[in-house]
């Protein structure tokens, strides 16, 4: 079984200038190691939609790799996105799923079906390739090769669950992070700072 910290460290070592779209527990660990924070988006306050946001970015900027660091509970809420991604087949999308079998941020309750094999599900939907790892050495060895091949690719990582006891961070400041990150990312990708304030947070 792999820890969040190790998985995020290994992924970041191979990311290059890829965009990252993270969600849930892995966002916390990713933020500690990310080498390109202005290419990062942490999908908070919109559970389950990381894969869809990542797909949109991948379609809009097909020359740049996009890493989606999804989780099992989130993907179960947006399972149809596997078929949507497979159908559109963006070559630059790499879909990681951190599988811990629980809803960690709400205290560790089990997901409805902890035994789902997300790699096989993605492959059945039509992803170009799918991989499943439960030890960090194998992930570390395989990842550079996986990321050098075209997507869409599913990389399922069996991680050790870390049930939270802190609850979900819901302040005005924390909820403003996502819209601010998205604006910074648009500026980085387009070279134009043209997305003004809007919505309840900025």
């Amino acid at each position, binding site marked *: 079984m792999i820890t969040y910290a190790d998985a995020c460290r290994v992924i970041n070592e191979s990311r290059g200038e890829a965009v990252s779209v993270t969600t849930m527990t892995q966002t916390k660990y990713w933020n500690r190691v990310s080498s390109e924070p202005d290419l990062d988006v942490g999908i908070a306050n919109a559970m389950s939609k990381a894969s869809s946001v990542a797909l*949109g970015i991948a379609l809009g900027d097909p020359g740049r790799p996009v890493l989606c660091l999804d989780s099992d509970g989130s993907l179960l809420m947006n399972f149809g996105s596997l078929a949507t991604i497979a159908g559109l087949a963006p070559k630059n999308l790499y879909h990681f799923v951190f599988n811990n079998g629980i809803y960690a941020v709400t205290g560790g309750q089990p997901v409805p079906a902890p035994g789902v094999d997300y790699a096989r599900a993605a492959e059945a939907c039509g992803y170009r390739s799918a991989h499943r790892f439960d030890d960090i050495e194998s992930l570390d060895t395989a990842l550079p090769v996986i990321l050098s091949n075209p997507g869409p690719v599913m990389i399922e990582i069996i991680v050790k669950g870390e049930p939270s006891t802190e609850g979900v961070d819901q302040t005005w400041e924390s909820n403003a992070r996502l819209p601010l990150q998205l604006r910074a990312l648009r500026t980085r990708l387009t070279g134009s700072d043209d997305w003004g304030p809007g919505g309840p947070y900025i």
Partner: protein
Amino acid sequence: MHNLINGVLHPKNVVAQLVQHGVSHYVTLPDSETANMYEALLAEPSITIVPVAREGEAIPIAAGLFVAGKNPVISIQNAGLFEAGDALRGLGLGIGLPLVMFIGYRGHNRKGDTPDSAATFLEPYLHMWRVEYFVVESNDDLDRVPLAFDLARKTNQPVAVAIGTEYASEPAGASGPAQEEAGQ
């Protein structure tokens, strides 16, 4: 039930509006009223159709496209917009996304006593989310589409265009914006 809507809505006219506003991607889950729109879009090379498996994906995908510098719209039915509520909240209204949303107004008949609850709840639902909207029922209403694009851009918020009729079929071989049919 008698339908009080007069006139027709030609999809080529709507496509022309999308082209005029530089739309790059049309994120959609087709519905019964928009089949002819889908066909018209297939003939427009400057717009990429992005099909989704469920309506809740549409706004997040559009958000990603916009972040990457593209100019998407979405097209889903009113029933699908209800399903997409949390996506609208978190990744439309919450991030301040300037997005025009074409919403199929299934069941709309102008009488108000429609048996289709998808129509009954659409406008109250948009009011609840504080989403501004325009209703388009025929070619005569198409001047409302530019208003929607302008409002979305000025406010950095999603704006809806409720399509209150089934898109008409285009005559075979027709090209360019369609004219109102006599007697409709």
